[in-house]
């Protein structure tokens, strides 16, 4: 059963297609990472999910219900930029939330900002970027919502507080909260998310459970005998999804039969050939960055 269902979501701004026929099913109580390069459509997706932007087409459902004002009692959102009222203090923001939401816990919000080192008496205009993010995170998590939508929730935070936010996310998921979050910190997503989707130019490039995605592919890497060693032959190999070459170092992303490919590479004279697991960064780069985009480091063969 999926709690959040995104069906054929498309969002255009004039001729620009920000989100293109996106379909996602986000299971109940899961942590779902939405990844993509800048401009991939993550924030547009979030805005459409919350009705902050009107979807050009498609539908979003929460527990099989369309978004309605009452749904916001169950949804908490942390936007990517500060939307705090500059002239209000942090405490006044909490009061605003308390009046708006039945389940807002002011005491918890106070504790959270205390842990982040934010003085609740300060006005928002006096807060650093990280403190503003921390305040918005506290405002969201103090509501113990059913759905948390977090757009770059660690932006501007120091590593200690980034870790604290990740722990909050994991704890909320343990409670049964369904969490969708985006981050450019791939390591954070890898740590917290069970499932991910990677957007590229508004389209869904990759989607699935993190463990499954890692298991699907392997990296075979080795040191070639000479720098101009021909690798064109690998380009037509269906087992190889991507070839990255930097000097004598060759990295092959393989979708099948990694052992055989490693043997072949060793037989061709490569040294130190080994098979390594993919990490999320490899998956991300493989999904969104054509090899040519890293041409200063990588010689493209496919």
């Amino acid at each position, binding site marked *: 059963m999926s709690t959040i269902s995104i069906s054929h979501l498309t969002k255009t701004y004039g001729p620009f297609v920000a989100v293109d026929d996106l379909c996602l099913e986000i299971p109940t109580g899961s942590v779902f990472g939405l990844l993509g390069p800048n401009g991939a459509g993550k924030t547009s997706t979030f*805005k459409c999910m*919350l*009705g*902050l*932007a*009107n979807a050009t087409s498609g539908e979003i459902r929460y527990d099989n219900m369309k978004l309605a*004002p*009452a*749904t*916001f*009692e169950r*949804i908490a*959102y942390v*936007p990517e930029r500060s*939307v*705090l*009222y500059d002239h*209000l203090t942090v405490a*006044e923001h909490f*009061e*605003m939330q308390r*009046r*708006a*939401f039945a389940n807002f816990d002011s005491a918890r919000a106070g504790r959270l900002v205390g842990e982040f080192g934010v003085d609740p008496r300060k006005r928002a205009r006096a807060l650093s970027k990280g403190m503003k993010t921390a305040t918005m995170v506290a405002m969201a998590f103090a509501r113990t919502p059913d759905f948390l939508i977090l757009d770059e929730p660690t932006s501007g935070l120091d590593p200690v507080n980034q870790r604290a936010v990740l722990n909050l996310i994991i704890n909320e998921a343990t409670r049964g909260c369904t969490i969708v979050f985006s981050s450019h910190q791939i390591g954070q997503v890898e740590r917290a998310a069970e499932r991910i989707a990677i957007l590229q130019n508004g389209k869904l490039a990759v989607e699935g459970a993190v463990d499954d995605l890692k298991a699907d592919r392997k990296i075979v890497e080795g040191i070639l005998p000479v720098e101009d060693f021909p690798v064109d032959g690998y380009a037509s190999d269906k087992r190889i999804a991507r070839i990255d070459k930097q000097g004598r170092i060759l990295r092959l992303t393989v979708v099948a039969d990694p052992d055989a490919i490693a043997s072949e590479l060793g037989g061709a004279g490569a040294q130190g050939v080994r098979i390594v697991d993919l990490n999320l960064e490899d998956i991300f780069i493989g999904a969104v960055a054509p090899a040519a985009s890293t041409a200063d480091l990588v010689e493209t063969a496919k």
Partner: protein
Amino acid sequence: MAYVEWLRVKKCLTILAIVLAAIFLIAVVVRISVNGAMSGMTDWQQEVGGDAIVSTTRLPDGSTRTTYTDRKDGSTVTVTDRGYDGKHIHIVDRHDRHRSTFKMAHVGPLLVERGAKNGEYDIDTNNTLDIGFVFSIVSIIGLIVATSLAAPLGRENERLEIAWAKPIDRTLYALHLYGVDAVGIAASLAMSAIVALLCMALFQLPHLILTPGGVWRIVLSLVLGLAWYAMYAGLTSWMKRGIGAVIGLAWPVGLVVPGLALAPLQGSSVGSAFHWIFQVIAAVDPLGYLHLTEVGEHGNIGLYGLDDVTKFAILAAMIVVYAGIGLIEWRRVEA
């Protein structure tokens, strides 16, 4: 739901209260500084009374009449004290000793009637003042407060992620904001009227009345402020930036257009065209209906010499249309 707007209103009213308190303090200082002149009448009475025959009688209507007669020159002062209705003072002073003092006694707008003929003076204190007229005057403050509270929806556009992520229908939320600001504008009028009356009372307690025309003036002062506020909402609710410029420009434009509409431009066809354009624009400009004349008088500042009921109808229509436009535009905005 409208907590932030309520804070804005509170802050605005706090600033207004400080300004009004300062005005009142200035009035107190002025009152103290003219105290000598203001007490001229008392001095005169004492001067006459010191060597005078004083007789006091109670009239059938309950008022008290005191007569001071100067034995030396026959001057008399007759004071009929009607309580809250004020005093009628009749002075017969053939020597005209205290003319200058009387003049000084007229500080403030309340001692408005005095006749001088052959050394006879009639002074009526505490003339009637229609509360509606006070509200007509303080409607300017209502407009200023409406300006400072203006564009509640446009101001939210920078943070729709907060405003629209609340469990309330957007239309209802916008109406909450409108409502809170309307209360703020009404409160500012009431505060200003009270301080205006207090300032008057420092010089002389006015005899307040409220006529049906005065009631309309009170209503007009409120709807004028609300129409001005609604106009801003209609102009700015779709904007994400540049709201301050609109708010700043609206005042000079709003004042100049009615002035241009009054200008005699009909001498040529081009002038007539401009005259017509300005007339049309002025008709939808709430400032064109500003009314500062006394109750019962049709104003000339409001361009059309309309009666108060018609002005009310026009301003009320402006509130509905402008606020409605603002609401519709705002619902189309995207974060």
